[in-house]
């Protein structure tokens, strides 16, 4: 407000180098400014992270005090055939989620970065599912897939499920969860790819066109390599997202039919808040934390965030 906005190019260039070198004489904020954020984040995200490890060595039914029982939960967990099953379900959901969403998001995003007529309107409409809550999405799809009342009785016969009961088989239920996840999250990843595809330098395409490369060739040799960072970021977010799918499973299939869609987060929820076996559930949660942290390290390692960090530390 007090400062006139300088030319944008100048702004970003100078801003970056100067902020990085810390040579200016401006007053600097103290660590105090980061304290409120650290406090809230520390108490409600970091402390629980440590607590969950501790709880995994205890027995606790949700009331009273947790009691230390050493490695018992972990021994149970590692010999539990249910763990392997839920690991497998989680892996299937994660991998299939990635394999369905990535090509779709990439194709749609690159298309939306172009200049076709109707593109803006189409993008605006495609974006709508992202505005619904996960719970609402799952409820709507549950209604749509209802074999008696929903869309399923009309569409089922077209796709080889004459009865329309798609949630009735284990394969169908898994597919439904993957499809709902794609419906919900493809728009977000499409947006990422759209933004990134707009940043691909034009001269690369000009040169390729002069060399006679077709559109498909250009996609594989220019667009995709240029979007590599985005593919990594988007994939990591997708994997973390699919790995932790919860509402969709709870509402759409409730883990069923049988135990067919009992992924790790779902199983953890059931153990903790249905059977009140907090100890074993915490062991399962710790496994989730380990996966989550590993993936988060991957994000930091491969995405632009690590660059931001080095800028900061390059004092």
């Amino acid at each position, binding site marked *: 407000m*007090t400062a006139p906005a300088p030319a944008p190019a100048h702004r970003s260039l100078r801003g970056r180098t100067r902020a990085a070198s810390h040579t200016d004489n401006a007053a600097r904020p103290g660590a105090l400014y980061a304290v409120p954020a650290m406090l809230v984040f520390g108490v409600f995200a970091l402390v629980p992270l440590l607590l969950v490890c501790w*709880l995994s060595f205890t027995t606790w039914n949700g009331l009273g005090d947790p009691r230390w029982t050493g490695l018992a939960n972990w021994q149970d967990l590692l010999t539990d055939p249910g763990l392997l099953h839920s690991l497998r379900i989680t892996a299937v959901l994660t991998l299939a989620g990635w394999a369905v969403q990535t090509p779709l998001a990439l194709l749609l995003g690159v298309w939306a970065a172009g200049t076709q007529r109707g593109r803006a309107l189409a993008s605006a409409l495609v974006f709508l599912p992202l505005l619904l809550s996960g719970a609402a999405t799952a409820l709507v799809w549950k209604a749509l897939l209802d074999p008696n009342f929903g869309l399923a009785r009309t569409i089922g016969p077209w796709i080889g499920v004459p009865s329309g009961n798609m949630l009735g088989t284990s394969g169908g239920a898994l597919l439904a969860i993957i499809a709902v996840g794609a419906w919900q999250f493809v728009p977000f990843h499409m947006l990422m790819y759209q933004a990134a595809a707009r940043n691909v330098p034009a001269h*690369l395409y000009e040169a390729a066109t002069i060399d006679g490369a077709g559109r498909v060739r250009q996609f594989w040799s220019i667009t995709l390599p240029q979007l590599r960072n985005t593919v990594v970021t988007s994939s990591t977010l997708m994997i973390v997202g699919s790995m932790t799918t919860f509402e969709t499973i709870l509402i759409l299939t409730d883990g069923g039919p049988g135990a067919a869609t009992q992924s790790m987060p779902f199983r953890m929820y059931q153990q*903790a808040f249905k059977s009140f076996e907090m100890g074993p559930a915490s062991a399962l949660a710790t496994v989730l934390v380990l996966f989550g942290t590993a993936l988060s390290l991957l994000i930091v390692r491969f995405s632009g965030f690590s660059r931001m960090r080095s800028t900061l530390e390059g004092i």
Partner: protein
Amino acid sequence: MATAPAPAPGQTRTPSEPGPGRMSGGSPQRTAGRRPLLSRANIPGGAASLIWLAIVLVPLWCMLTWSVQNRDGFLDNGPLSLPRELTPENLQTVLEGGFTNAFVNTAIVTVVSVALTLVCAVPAAYAVVRSTSRFVAGAFSVFLLGLAIPAQAVIIPVYLMIVRMGLYDTKAAIILPTVAFGLPFAVLILAGSLRDVPAENYEAMTLDGAGPLRTLWSLVIPMSRGSIVAVGIYSALQAWNGFLFPLILTQSEEQQILTLNLWNFQTEYGVNIPGLMTAVLLSAAPVFIAYVLARRWIVAGLAGLGGK
């Protein structure tokens, strides 16, 4: 990797500098780097978009048409046809089921969560960009790590802590963890946009005799207005659509949140699908209205993570 041009760092500030009618274009680097219109049409992309558009729109169409029919009409009509007669009956059913209360609860939780997120994240982002403190550098690394901690993984200890703090079944029980898990993203986005503010501006503030607090107020906040709005919208969406924290940390009907109210509605009314669709539409109405009014901002807010 090295050949990729630095993406416009102010992805989230594009709203303040609207491009020529584009959804998220607009910053100079991007316009300069835009490829010229390819002469041939992108046929696979176009076809995929059409198909995907249909996949997105059919359920939304069902939601709309089912919500205005009564149950018998809906069953006679079939899922895809236009409703023959419109009825406000569903609206009545929904409003009788504690919807209004849940709506107000959700609104309170959302407003407080957004306010708290911004109050914590803006100064933190300022510190991350401008402070020389080691503590801040360490804090930033911790925030980065926090980006992918799945909320489910820590829900058991959060439950334990909330119960022990005496906050169980209160709005604070929803707000505090929601804010905590939104903060890493908020700080990242805000810090990203603050890096664009040239050092000269900070120096000018200091020459004017301003301390860090006044710099925060009269330079940092105005300069990152675009990102603040984007982060605000993002946190509002997260809070409005939250499910896990309310599910575990509240219990009474009095404290019920919209997402849980919807789920309850489905359990209670079972096959009243038109009623459910009405409830879903009503619960999403504020978000849809906001989207119509401020699409650019919402898209930018959600694209923040992708704009790196």
